[in-house]
């Protein structure tokens, strides 16, 4: 058995905070290293979930698009929303998942803006689903050090 990457990063963060930073002068360098230690902590948090949170979110967005497509009145947008709903992640590499996620979230912005202009219960249901997804997206990205 070998140490896990997340364990190594945790150890690195502790060493930077408890051993390296206090030994540095001037105070500016000390504070900079403390910030870098916090970055290592954030990277450790992100490492374990990086692929999973993107896969989960891309799946949630495609599901949302599938539900929303029939409500969309703009034909070109409806076609793109439908196509996105039917798409799939080509690989589990994080940069590729991220590229897919950005494309889906860009389309989500367009869909949200469009649905806001529509009347009727179906549009309101889609709008509510979008807000739920946006709230969920911030849970997936939450970092322990964040203020809220």
């Amino acid at each position, binding site marked *: 058995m070998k140490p896990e990457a997340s364990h190594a990063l945790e150890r690195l963060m502790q060493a930077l905070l408890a051993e390296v930073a206090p030994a540095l002068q001037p105070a500016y360098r000390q504070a900079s290293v403390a910030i870098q230690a*916090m*970055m290592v902590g954030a990277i450790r948090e992100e490492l374990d979930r990086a692929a999973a949170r993107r896969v989960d979110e891309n799946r949630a967005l495609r599901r949302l698009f599938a539900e929303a497509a029939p409500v969309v009145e703009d034909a070109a947008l409806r076609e793109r929303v439908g196509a996105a709903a039917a798409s799939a992640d080509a690989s589990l590499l994080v940069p590729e998942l991220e590229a897919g996620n950005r494309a889906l979230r860009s389309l989500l912005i367009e869909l949200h803006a469009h649905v806001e202009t529509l009347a009727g219960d179906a549009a309101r249901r889609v709008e509510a689903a979008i807000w739920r997804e946006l709230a969920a997206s911030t849970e997936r990205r939450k970092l322990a050090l964040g203020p*809220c």
Partner: protein
Amino acid sequence: MSDLARRLAAYLAPRLGGARDVEVSGLDRIHGGASRETSRFVLRYEQDGRRVERRLILRRDPPGSLIETDRRVEYAAYRAFHGTAVPVPEALWLEEDPAPLDFPFFVMEELTGFESSVQALLAPPYLEHRAKIGRRKWTILGEIAKADPEKLGLVGLLAPVAADECWRRELAHWERVLDEDELEPQPVIRAVIRWLRRNPPPPAQKVGVVHADYRTGNFLFDRQGEVRAVLDWEMAHLGDPLEDLAWGLGAVWQWSRDGLAGSLLPKAEAIRIWEAASGLRAEPRALLWWELFSCVKGQGIWVSGGREFQAGSNHDSVLCLSSWMMGNSQDRAALMLLGHLT
């Protein structure tokens, strides 16, 4: 003396009224001035037969920063409020020519022995004085709101704006920052921007001086719970005073995670104190608009810092960490205000 210290001494010498043996020492960068490189130093010289020693601050423009700002505005704001009910350090010299120190800069008095960090605030001996600090903080903010920009000599330096245009100008500015600097789509903040345009606030009760970044971390406090100086005026402008009130109430400054605005006071108490000091009213609907606007502005700041770091124009790690951590917290703050997250 380092090269920078020598050049700073050479710049200051002719501005000290016949001073001799001008010397700069202890030039030491302070962390946290993400919009300008901030360093403290000691200036020593001989004048009228006596030795003078002054502790000063150098604020120098960096190549890239968290906020793109006008140093002239910041300098003018310090000068305008010095000696008023709003405590600030005295600003002494402004140099916009990059020749003397490679970048434009200004020099101001250093106030020593005080704290500004959230970490200090949330630990003894300051922790027990949080409520007092909070009362002073929002009283001073009320004084800023009450101040007359014309009497302060700031009209002409700060761009004028009509009472019913304050919100539109600020929103357009920060939307443009997001358009130019975002590295990834921002569906929460884009939805907030649309909400803000659909639900405009009433005209400002007055067009006043807006500090624009008066929150925990940007003022000095002492061990007795007194606020000793308001810092970081680089985003100051004329506008709706509610913008300042809303900014400091944001959930992203609640590091204590106990629901206290700015980790200092209950929100309702902070608002009451501000209303009493400013003579203005924080009408709930208007305040909600400015609180949501604060989320757009905050995200603009985190996003542009992230871009600077990514582009390599500023390697300060705080820019990267802020774009990760504060960016998501800012989205969460907006969702909470709109009732989509508890």
